[in-house]
């Protein structure tokens, strides 16, 4: 069932490039952690969490799209996968709100 999709699959080189990007993003995340340790006091509280979450979201999407091939699959599978992701995200944000803990207040 993947023969048709196989044609425009990424090559080994592409995969390695993606992995390099993922590695660099991870390095950024770790760097942000230490930068926050140094200058975090002077910045509004949401800056670093937001930056970190954005970076991890990019990594998340890249792994799902390329390594899990979701980009090359039928759109139905993306929907199947996003139902769970979106449901989990919205339900648990509400739970955190009810519990008096907004998710990213740190």
């Amino acid at each position, binding site marked *: 069932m993947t023969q048709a999709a196989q044609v425009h699959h990424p090559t080994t080189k592409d995969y390695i490039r993606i992995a390099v990007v993922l590695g660099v993003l991870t390095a950024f995340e770790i760097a942000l952690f230490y930068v926050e340790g140094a200058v975090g006091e002077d910045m509004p509280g949401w800056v670093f969490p937001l930056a970190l979450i954005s970076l991890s979201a990019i990594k998340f999407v890249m792994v799902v799209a390329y390594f899990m091939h979701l980009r090359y699959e039928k759109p139905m599978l993306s929907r199947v996968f996003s*139902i*769970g992701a979106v*449901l989990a995200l919205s*339900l648990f944000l*509400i*739970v955190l*709100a*009810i*519990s*008096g803990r907004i998710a990213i207040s740190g």
Partner: protein
Amino acid sequence: MATIAPPRTPTVFKRPQSTTGFWSWITTVDHKKIAILYGYTAFSFFIIGGVEALLLRIQLAGPDGTFLTAAQYNGLFTTHAVTMIFLFVMPMASAFFNYLLPLMLGARDVAFPRMNAVSYWIFLFGGIFIYSSIIFGTNPAPVGGNLPGGALDASPLGSIPGGGWFLYAPNSGPQFSPGTSIDYAVLGLQILGVASLISSVNFIVTIFNMRTKGMRLLRMPVFVWMTMIVAFLLLFSLPIIAIALFMLTTDRQFGTVFFEAASGGDPILWQNLFWLFGHPEVYVLILPAMGIVSEVLPVFSRKPLFGYPAIVFAGGAIAFLGFGVWAHHMLASDIPTVAQAAFGLSTMTIAIPTGIKIFNWIATIWGGRIRLTTPMLFSLGFVALFVIGGLSGVTHAVVPSDWQQTDTYYIVAHLHYVLFGGAIFGLFSGIYYWFPKLTGRMYNERLGQIHFGLMFFGMNLTFGPMHWLGLQGMVRRTWVYSADTGLGPWNLVVTIGSFVIATSILVFMFNWTWSKRKGEIAPNDPWDARTLEWTIPSPTPEYNFGVKPTVTVLDDFWHQKYDEDDEGRAVRRPEADELVDQLIEANGNPETEIRLPAPSYFPIIAGFGMMLLAYGIIYHTRPWGIPLIVIGILMLVSSLLGWGGEPVEEVHEDAGVDPTDPESDTEVVNPDPESAPPELVGVDDR
């Protein structure tokens, strides 16, 4: 009758050979046999749960009852709920899903037949596990009961798990429930959750991938749609309760304090997690019944289902909204006012899709040529009682009103109107409707109607007065009330009602047992039905369809039999009878080779391993606890690996043989028991 059981490819063990008798049931992966197993198991649990309810009602028949101890009462109302929800309504619905899904979709089996068997065995052992608490569990008497708090209640049934089906922490934690009984409920629910999760994936993939040619999504019967929605609800809600139950297990077994407020834990977290699962679960219970009713009403009104897409999408909307209303179970707890308002509002919106369904059903009946058979009566009863239960449900959405009603018998009345008047009436409607399909015989119509009459009357007698008992302030889950409350007379009425219900169930059991053996032989297409399962012989051959069907419209079978006259009324075609007979003849005599899923020993081993693992966790501090855990895990892993080595499908050699001639008394005429048609012999063997 050249039925030679094909030699099965041996793997580690000899492969299962039996096609009849005990071992064929143990090793079966046939969706119909599994459905029958589910059905009988669920019904047995229904009897157990019903007897528990009767015991509770005897205790409450008059003020200051002394029939039960406090611990017995706690245990009985808890296991009554757990049994009815997880061991009766869900598995009984699963019996319907299993039996009907492949037939309605025109498939040979579900997508993963062996996983299907695993689900059943895990469910069975989970149920046994919970009830084994009666023998092995210990349960200190609750404070405020008739025994000194903390003393062990050694009375019979004193050690069944108490604490409510919701297992509210920290009441279910180690401090307030120190015995092992609660562990049986906690781990038992965990096991049942695994079974349901497996079958939900199975059913969704079956619906997505196993449809026959032309069976587009919007041509599927409503019952299939509701099955899919139920499966989605379970798929996304079970992981949440799995974690919650696991946290409770670590609280009870490994010294964590997740839910203990005094040590910084969070009891509200339990309520959130439980009801995040618990509310979708409510729709898991009711949607299958809605699906059954949507099949039964049009058939017996001789009209198409009114607003098919509306009913389908309303079902989806109920499921979607059902995830966003869980906190209305917690309105009396400490959640922010904004959240209370929001959840009250979202709860009210559920009335919209539900109302759409009700109006569609009424419009389906409207102007139809109605036949008041037993399944139709039960479906009509469903609609009526569900409306009452739905309306009292909306009153809980009004927050101040809910504060007044919460934890009173008003809630008990509401939930029984939707679950007894709703789910169980729907299930009985289905049992009668598909009885000819399952057995090849007709049930006794008069007994069926007596069953309905008694049950409808008894149900209202039982749960109707609970409304005003609740509004007068009678509190739930309390084992005695005093005479000066004045609640005695109505409680007596309620108790009488519950025995009327019990009588009606006896009538049903007699009807079932008698009709299965002695009932009239069912004609082809006894109900003049609309869906694919009626185009094949009854009882269903092992391979389902001799010829894979092709559908071109919704209710394809009906459209083959009926035409419209100039005024748009349905007119039966003259050749319809002949067509039905031809179809059924062709489907009973397959000409091509048929490949069926191969039977396996491993599902039951996996299920048993799961149960041993749970015992091991409860008793992990005993010397034999850890070995039990190890053995359980080994059984699970080895059976998974073992079945990885088995062939998935094997050729069914019955091709060309008519194994299910409905005219014959199969058990007798077939000279070679090994070659007897599996369904019939199996059903009768039980």
